[in-house]
């Protein structure tokens, strides 16, 4: 690169909006974020997904400038904004943030709330008014600009917080569980709106949630976290279909797990489970006699009253049926001395009584093997 070029002007087009390297933060001796590294390219939605206490919110706060990292670096648009030595204050980072609690200022009207970041940047009054009007339309709050926050519903408050964060066109929008305070119906609606808004504005978004459905439906890529460590980064389908760890597999969807032992003497390697045996993907890489766990998604298992003659599957006995309205769930005890029990979805129309014999059809290609 020529020596005279200003880095901020001649930014390479592939320069990520956010780059996090080795980010580490402890509270009272507890490592809440441990050596996190990831990048977020322009226009992408990246989700930090994990159970509460996994460090995802702290990561967000480190990026926003609300905490200083103990080690590691945060780069926004090619500028180092945080390390153990550098600490650009939040107001200097050009990021937008929507809190879980929205943090709408109760003493300001909707318009004043949305216009605040522009006012803080000393933008002239007419421009602010025009921008606020545009944002109000964008988040569908028409006619409410003069209202006080206490006069708004939860969903409307959430949209004010969003409009405020977007008003000054930040390089990066940070969303901290923005939908978790809404009821189920509203949440679904807001999720769809958020998706439309993002694809229209092409904003780069870092999204924090513990809800795997939100993560799957909104993100280009998902970062699954646990105990302050990244378990896996990848597109939603990869995270779901090819989980890197058992934690990821469990966290992003329901899982059926069966313990067994690899059998070596058969023509094709199989896994013995109880008194049956099944084929499983990847079993040939393991030594015969190795203890393993076979996992699969419930939708890849079928419940059959008569076994498919040349199919892959296990036999068992229904011990309980639970009615959920839109579906049924069977608790099935697999034949064998260890009496493993799995929960499988069934069709409502072909309900089977407890105590009946049953067969589980398993798609070998869609199973995963975990050495124990």
């Amino acid at each position, binding site marked *: 690169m020529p020596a005279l070029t200003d880095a901020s002007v001649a930014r390479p087009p592939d320069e990520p909006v956010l780059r996090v390297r080795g980010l580490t933060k402890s509270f009272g001796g507890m490592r809440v974020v441990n050596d996190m590294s990831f990048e977020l390219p322009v226009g992408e939605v990246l989700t930090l997904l994990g159970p509460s206490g996994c460090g995802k*919110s702290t990561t967000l706060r480190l990026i926003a400038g609300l905490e200083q990292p103990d080690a590691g670096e945060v780069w926004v648009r090619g500028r180092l904004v945080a390390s153990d030595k550098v600490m650009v204050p*939040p107001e200097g980072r050009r990021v937008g*943030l929507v*809190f879980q609690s929205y943090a709408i200022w109760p003493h300001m009207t909707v318009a004043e709330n949305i216009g605040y970041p522009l006012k803080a*940047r000393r933008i002239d009054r007419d421009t602010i008014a025009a921008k606020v009007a545009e944002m109000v339309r964008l988040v569908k709050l028409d006619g409410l600009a003069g209202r006080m926050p206490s006069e708004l519903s939860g969903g409307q408050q959430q949209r004010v917080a969003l409009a405020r964060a977007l008003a000054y066109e930040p390089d990066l929008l940070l969303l901290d569980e923005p939908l978790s305070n809404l009821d189920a119906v509203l949440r679904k609606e807001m999720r769809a709106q958020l998706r439309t808004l993002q694809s229209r504005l092409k904003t780069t978004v870092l999204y924090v949630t513990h809800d795997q459905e939100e993560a799957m439906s909104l993100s280009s890529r998902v970062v699954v976290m646990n105990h302050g460590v990244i378990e896996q980064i990848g597109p939603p389908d990869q995270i779901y279909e090819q989980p890197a760890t058992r934690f990821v597999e469990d966290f992003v969807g329901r899982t059926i797990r069966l313990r067994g032992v690899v059998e070596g003497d058969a023509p094709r390697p199989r896994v013995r489970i109880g008194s049956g045996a099944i084929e499983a993907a990847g079993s040939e890489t393991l030594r015969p006699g190795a203890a393993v766990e076979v996992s699969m998604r419930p939708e890849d298992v079928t419940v059959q009253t008569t076994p498919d003659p040349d199919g892959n599957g296990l036999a068992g006995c229904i011990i309980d049926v639970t009615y959920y309205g839109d579906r049924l769930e069977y608790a099935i005890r697999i034949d064998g001395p260890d009496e493993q029990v799995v929960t499988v979805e069934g069709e409502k129309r072909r309900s089977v009584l407890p105590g009946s014999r049953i067969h589980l059809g398993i798609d070998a290609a869609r199973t995963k093997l975990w050495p124990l």
Partner: protein
Amino acid sequence: MAAVSAATPVSMGPRVQAALGITTLALVALVTLAPVLVVVFGALEGDVWRETFIASAANRSAIGYSLLLALRAPIAALIGFLIAWLLIRIELPGGRFIEFAMWVTFFIPLLPVTLSWILLLNPHYGLVNKALMSLPFIHAPPFDIYSVGGILWVHIVASSVPVMVVILGPAIRQLDASFEEVGRICGSGPLAVFRQITLPILAPAILTGTLAGFIKSLEAFEVEQLLGRPAGIFVYSTRIYDLASWEPPNFKSAMALSTFMLLVLLLIALAYQRLSRRNDYATILGRGASFRQLRVGPTRWLISAALLLVVAISLICPLFMLVCGSFMKLFGFFSIPEPYTLDHWHEVLADPTFLHSLTNSLVLSVGAGIAGVLVYAIVAYLIVRSRLPGRGVVDLLAWLPWSIPGILLGMSVLWLILASPLLSFLYGSLASLVLIMIVAQMPIGVHMMKTSIRQIAVELEQSSRVCGAGPTRTFFSIVLPLIRPMLVSIFVIVFISALRDISTIIFLAGAGSQTLSLLMMQLATSSNLEASAVIGVITTAIVVAVALLARSFGLQVTVQRPSR
């Protein structure tokens, strides 16, 4: 984890702002510590201690009288607790009016009330004495206001009891009624429940209140000056006043005496701190707010009558007598032909000194109010939200002036101004009065601000920072507007305190910075009680007007019931 990070404050950001913050904290430490250090170091020299305590019987007697008169604290705490409990827990006819009257009494300046009691209990012309002496079997005036009993009476009636009612009210209100209800269900009568459950649970609160009253009683000045001096009764504060205003002033003895009192006060203050912290625990126990007022039979009329008598004695009667006194030809002489006149009003209102003092008082009160609110808000914010070094120490130091008597604060600041050429420009100036009032009211101001700021969700501030506003803009456009009611409350408290104050500013005011309260004091001690009463009426009117105005804005020092 989320809770941990949510409680972590935003870092201060730019270095300049951090430096400003540290400077502020250092200044607070300086102004709170300096008076104490001046007094203690002043008392370290040579023979002062022997001279002060062994050679001078007057000094020893002043300490004795101070401690004797402090006995009003436990008495007032008991009466105040009883009144507060009756008002809050029992459905009384006229209950709201009685509460309101107690609240007004809380704000009324002491000096005018003292004048009224002189009118009533003066051994020569006191109305009560005269009335009783008209009875056949009483030949000598039964009461003498110029005595230990007189001083105790004025304090208890006019300030100690109303203060206790106001202080103990919230504690009683927070006590979960279910504690008492369970007692009733277990088979105890209302009196047994009061004795076995209510009283023990609230005992720490009463004790804390007593200690607070004890400390405050040791700094009383104007009542003792007016009522004690004629009878040769001197307390610590009036003795200090004498020592330091003699020509030449005996600062050394004054400081030795002060150091001794400071030691006593700090010990009590420490006990108070420990107690009030444990008290918080008792508060948490009860979820509060869930009580129903008790209904009692015809007894409630009796209770109401008794409480109305208290209101009559502590508020109505003194105010009435004060107004009477201001219109009298000769203070206290009701029996002369045509005892009333407007002359004193004419005389006072036409006097340029009055107008000058009024202006000074208003400048002082408004100035200290506004500057104080700003300073307390900044200091409290730095203590609660910043990560600056030393904020914990400053948190403790901001509490220090609470246990320093006004007269001591005034004396040490006077000494500092006289001793250091850098500060000489402050000598006798109104600015020095504003400054000292800000320091004197710092404990209550910073404490109330801290409570208020803690209630703001941190996200509201963090959100502002992420939106691009720096710490300063965030403070002024988010934090201050959110605690607006508290700003008004503290302004009113500082305003009224500054308007009433005598002991703190008496050493510092010069000819050009004479205030209304000092003028009133000066007239009263130079036996011009009529003119003093005129100013008393005016001062009281201003105080009550401001308090009422503030009440309509929702002043938070209140015995008012929370809105239902």
